[in-house]
Structure formats: structure tokens, C-alpha cells
């Protein structure tokens, strides 16, 4: 019997199907692992042991009654930005410390209907704003590969939970890289589907034109299986796309022979970390050896402007979305002030952390009278330019391949006082959100840093609604290497 805490979902499902293990046993193993390592990793904000065991028993009964399913009885961790009825949803913020929603998000409902067992809610940068999970009001998550380093963010808790064996898979959200970047830094697979592929109903809003839910898994097949479970149109989200959902496992083993893969020039700048460059070069050689046509120096000339576009559009949308935290309807409320406005301003001043306040201020400024045209409207126009450059590239290539991050995981505290240096972590991931494309991070090697081995991620970007090709390339690459067999030295 393999170690229960290092199984993929499809391996776990096979054991469940063969009655070699029960969901209760899998769930108990995950909860024991959380008990053993989470004091050091701090991936979880809330562990729901009792609910999990009840869900596990229900899943075992469903299997006993003849039901089958790829996720039926398999333990999952959910980023604490996904609304769960009856279990608090904090968004990593003091503002929502005691917030228990009276409804269930669409994706959470889909997973629970499929028999998923939720072991807990994971840590994150407050309201998903950050690249290190240090902006959580409840303390940083630690990278399982080196506890002195960040796991990335904002979905750092979900990435760390999967890397550390605390859940078989997890969900996160990705607005500018918040799934792919922590997946890369923690050595797991993480995918942001096409904007509109997954319902955002029950995803606490950060930047509504960019946010998308996606999975963290131990291999690419699991990513396809989780996408099969969570994708699809939802009347509760007007921006969810009314398009058919394919079986994402269908093309998985088709290989890359004959596929045209472009490597954007701007994603391999001269100052890229040498270790990251080496891993990406090796991965490109591996794909070429599998029969892919690799073409380097594909131009995406406006890439250098994407960071500015993102840090105008995302904070602008955030400043509107986060207006709802007013101390009147729910959440933290300061009530000792001089009147309604004073209470509201102090509620927001005390309830939000520094990065959230910084971004609300930035967005408010960009939308304010006299600056709207120069910042917000200009950024929206450059957003069109960036989309067209991707369109032109995808007229020639089936997929684009690039690094996920400029460096491996950095040390906790290293960039905490310099917001702009932190923003630069997402320079290769946020253009994908700006253009609404699907993108995946798949482990592509390790670099040594002192006594630690730090994971590196390979990013594969596809055409809108062509997750199938992205997964196919990722799966073909994954089989040339065996990075997922390594586990962190916890």
C-alpha cells in the first residue's frame, strides 16, 4: 500500500474503487498529516475534521451503494476565498474573521455533489492580494521545501497543503498568477482555466474581469479530472461562458508530436534567474525530443506594459468590489465612532491590512476624476493591445511555453516592505489573466539554494477555451520527467 498522503486523486480513486482503502482512512490520513506538519507549514486557517469525517463516511456509503466517481471520497482543501455554508470564510482578513456564509458557492457545491471531502480552508494573502501569503492577517504560510521561504501567493496555503501531503488536491483562485505562481514555488501542478470557464458565484470578488478558480494537483491527469468536475456555465454568474465543457482527459495522452509551440522572447529576459532558465531550457529540449516544433523568440512586445495594466485594472476593480465591507451588513464593524461615516472609515481602516488598503487607494486614484483617462481607460486600451499580440501568436502556435516566475521561492520577509518588488513576481503570469487565457504551471525541476532544493515551474499557455491542448502539452512534458515523485523534506 502506497503512502496515503502522497497519492494522486486518480490513484486514490482506484484504491477506493478496489475497496483497498476507504474514504474514512484517506481522510484520517490527511487529518493526521495536518496534525503532524501544519504547525510548521501553516497551510490551513480552519481544519474541518468533524465535517470531513462525516463527508468521508457519506462517500463510503455512496460507494457501497454502487456509485463511482473520480473525486468521490477524495480529500480536498479549499482556499478560504471560496464560500462554504456553515464553515467560516475569512479571505485571510480580520474583516471576515467570523463570517459564516448562509449559502454555498457553485464550485463548492459541484465538488460536494461529486463526493469531495473538505479537510479545511487554506491560508491566503488577504482578499487574494499578494504573491507570498505574507499578507494574511493570520500569519504567513511556509514553503514545505524550505520553511524559511514563502510558498508564493495568493493561494499559498492551497499549494503548500498539496505539496505537504495535507490534501490530495486543492482549489485556489488566480487573478494575476495566484494559482500558477504558488504551484511553481511549491512544486505542484496548478491551473488557471480560461476566464468564464468556471463559475465565480461564491468566489469572494477581488478583480471581477480577471478572477478565475482552478485546481492544485499532484499530476496533470488530476488537473483534468478536477476541471471536469468544476467547469461549466452557471446562471448565477453572468460572466460564466455558455460553452460546452469537453472531457478534459480526452486529449491527455495524445502527445506533442507535430504541435507548434512558441516561446515568447520577452519571457526569457537576460536577468532571468539562471537556475529557472536552465530548467525551462531543459523542458523545451524534452518537448522537442517528443516531436514538438519549438520556435523561440516569438514576439509579445507589450509584455513590459502588462504589469502596469494589471496594477491599474485589478486595484480599480478591487476598489469597487471591496466597497461592500462597510461594517453595516456583515463582517468586522467599528461602532464607537462619531457617526456613520466615521464608523465606516474606521471599520475599513482597522479591518483591512496594509496591502488591501494600498490597492484600494491605488484603484480609487486611478478611477478618480481627472485621472480616469490617463490610467484606467489607457490601461483598458493597452489590455486590447496585449490581447491582440496573443491572438497573433496563437494564429501560428498551438501553445506558448515560458517560465512561471522570474526566481524560485524567496525568503519570508525579503520583499515584504517593497510592494513593487513583490508585484514583479507575477510579471510572467498576469498577462495571461489580462488576455483571459488558460495557463498551467507544471513542475520542471529544482534549483539548489543553500541546503534546500527549490522547485521551478513551467508555464504552458493556450488559446481561449483550449485547456485540452494545454493539458496535453503539460502531460507530455510531465511524462519525460519524474519531478512529482520527490516530496518535501518535512
Amino acid at each position, binding site marked *: 500500500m502506497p503512502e496515503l498522503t502522497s497519492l494522486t486523486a486518480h490513484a486514490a480513486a482506484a484504491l477506493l474503487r478496489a475497496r483497498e482503502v476507504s474514504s474514512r482512512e484517506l481522510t484520517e490520513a490527511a487529518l493526521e498529516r495536518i496534525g503532524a506538519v501544519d504547525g510548521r507549514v501553516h497551510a490551513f486557517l480552519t481544519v474541518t475534521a468533524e465535517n470531513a469525517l462525516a463527508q468521508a463516511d457519506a462517500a463510503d456509503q455512496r460507494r457501497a451503494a454502487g456509485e463511482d466517481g473520480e473525486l468521490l471520497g477524495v480529500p480536498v482543501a479549499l482556499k478560504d476565498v471560496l464560500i462554504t455554508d456553515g464553515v467560516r470564510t475569512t479571505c485571510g482578513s480580520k474583516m471576515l474573521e467570523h463570517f459564516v456564509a448562509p449559502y454555498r458557492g457553485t464550485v463548492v457545491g459541484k465538488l460536494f455533489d461529486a463526493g469531495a471531502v473538505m479537510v479545511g480552508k487554506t491560508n491566503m494573502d488577504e482578499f487574494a492580494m499578494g504573491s507570498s501569503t505574507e499578507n494574511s492577517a493570520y500569519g504567513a504560510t511556509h514553503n514545505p521545501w524550505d520553511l524559511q521561504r514563502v510558498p508564493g501567493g495568493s493561494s499559498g496555503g492551497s499549494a503548500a497543503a498539496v505539496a505537504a501531503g495535507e490534501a490530495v488536491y486543492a482549489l485556489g483562485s488566480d487573478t494575476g498568477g495566484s494559482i500558477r505562481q504558488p504551484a511553481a514555488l511549491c512544486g505542484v501542478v496548478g491551473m488557471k482555466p480560461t476566464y468564464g470557464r468556471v463559475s465565480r458565484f461564491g468566489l469572494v470578488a477581488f478583480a471581477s474581469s480577471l478572477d478565475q478558480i482552478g485546481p492544485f494537483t499532484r499530476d496533470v491527469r488530476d488537473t483534468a479530472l478536477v476541471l471536469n468536475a468544476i467547469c461549466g456555465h452557471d446562471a448565477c454568474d453572468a460572466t460564466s461562458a455558455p460553452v460546452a465543457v469537453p472531457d478534459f482527459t480526452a486529449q491527455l495522452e495524445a502527445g506533442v508530436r507535430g504541435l507548434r509551440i512558441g516561446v515568447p522572447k520577452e519571457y526569457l529576459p537576460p536577468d532571468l534567474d539562471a537556475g529557472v532558465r536552465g530548467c525551462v531550457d531543459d523542458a523545451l529540449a524534452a518537448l522537442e525530443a517528443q516531436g514538438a516544433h519549438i520556435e523561440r523568440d516569438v514576439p509579445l512586445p507589450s509584455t513590459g506594459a502588462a504589469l502596469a495594466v494589471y*496594477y491599474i485594472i485589478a486595484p480599480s476593480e478591487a476598489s469597487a468590489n471591496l466597497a461592500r465591507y462597510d461594517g453595516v451588513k456583515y463582517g468586522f464593524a467599528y461602532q464607537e*465612532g462619531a457617526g456613520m461615516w466615521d464608523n465606516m472609515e474606521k471599520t475599513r481602516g482597522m479591518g*483591512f491590512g496594509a496591502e488591501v488598503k494600498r490597492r*484600494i487607494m491605488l484603484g480609487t486614484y486611478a478611477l478618480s476624476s481627472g485621472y480616469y483617462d490617463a490610467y484606467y481607460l489607457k490601461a*483598458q486600451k493597452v489590455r486590447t493591445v496585449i490581447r491582440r499580440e496573443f491572438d497573433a501568436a496563437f494564429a501560428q502556435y498551438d501553445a506558448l511555453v515560458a517560465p512561471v516566475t522570474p526566481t524560485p521561492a524567496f525568503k519570508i520577509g525579503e520583499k515584504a516592505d517593497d510592494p513593487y518588488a513583490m508585484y514583479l513576481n507575477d510579471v510572467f503570469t498576469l498577462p495571461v489573466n489580462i488576455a483571459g487565457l488558460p495557463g498551467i504551471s507544471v513542475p520542471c525541476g529544482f534549483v539548489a539554494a543553500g541546503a534546500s532544493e527549490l522547485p521551478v515551474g513551467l508555464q504552458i499557455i493556450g488559446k481561449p477555451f483550449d485547456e485540452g491542448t494545454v493539458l496535453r502539452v503539460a502531460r507530455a512534458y510531465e511524462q519525460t520527467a519524474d519531478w512529482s515523485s520527490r516530496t518535501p523534506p518535512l
Partner: protein
Amino acid sequence: MSIDRETVLHIAKLARIALTDDEIELFRSQLSDILGHFDVLDGIDTDGIEPTAQILPLENVFAPDVSRPSLPQAEVLKLAPLTDDGYLRVRAVLE
């Protein structure tokens, strides 16, 4: 691009966020730094380019005009700090 203390206070007022003196100076300095990096946009020609608000070719998404139950009022009001006879209560706007 550099912004002054008055601008920070103006933005904070628009955003309804009370800031401490330390935060006012910190955000003045950090927002000036961040805004300085946005000059890169000036180098991109956007004459005649339409803005993108979101990437899907969807507009005017309608839902069927069918009534369905809302969340239970009592459950929702339980989340509020102050309620009064089925209403959310706030302090007087003008005192």
C-alpha cells in the same frame, strides 16, 4: 510621478478608509513609487484602439424572469452588527 499628502487624504476620503499618520506617509511614498512605473503605458500607441473591459464576447446577459426564493431574511440579518425590526441599522448620516 509623485503624490502629496493632501492627495493621499483625498483618496482615503473617497475610499472611506481612516489612515494613521504613519500610513499616510507610507502610502504617499509607496503609491508615488508604484505610479512612477505606470509611465511605461505612455510608450504604447493606443490611437483608435477600443478598451477591453472583459474578454468574453458576452453582453446584456439576461436571466429568465422567474421568481425564486431569496436567502432567508433572518439568516442574513444574523450577520449584521446592528438590526432593528428586520432592517439593517446604522448611525444617523447627519448628526
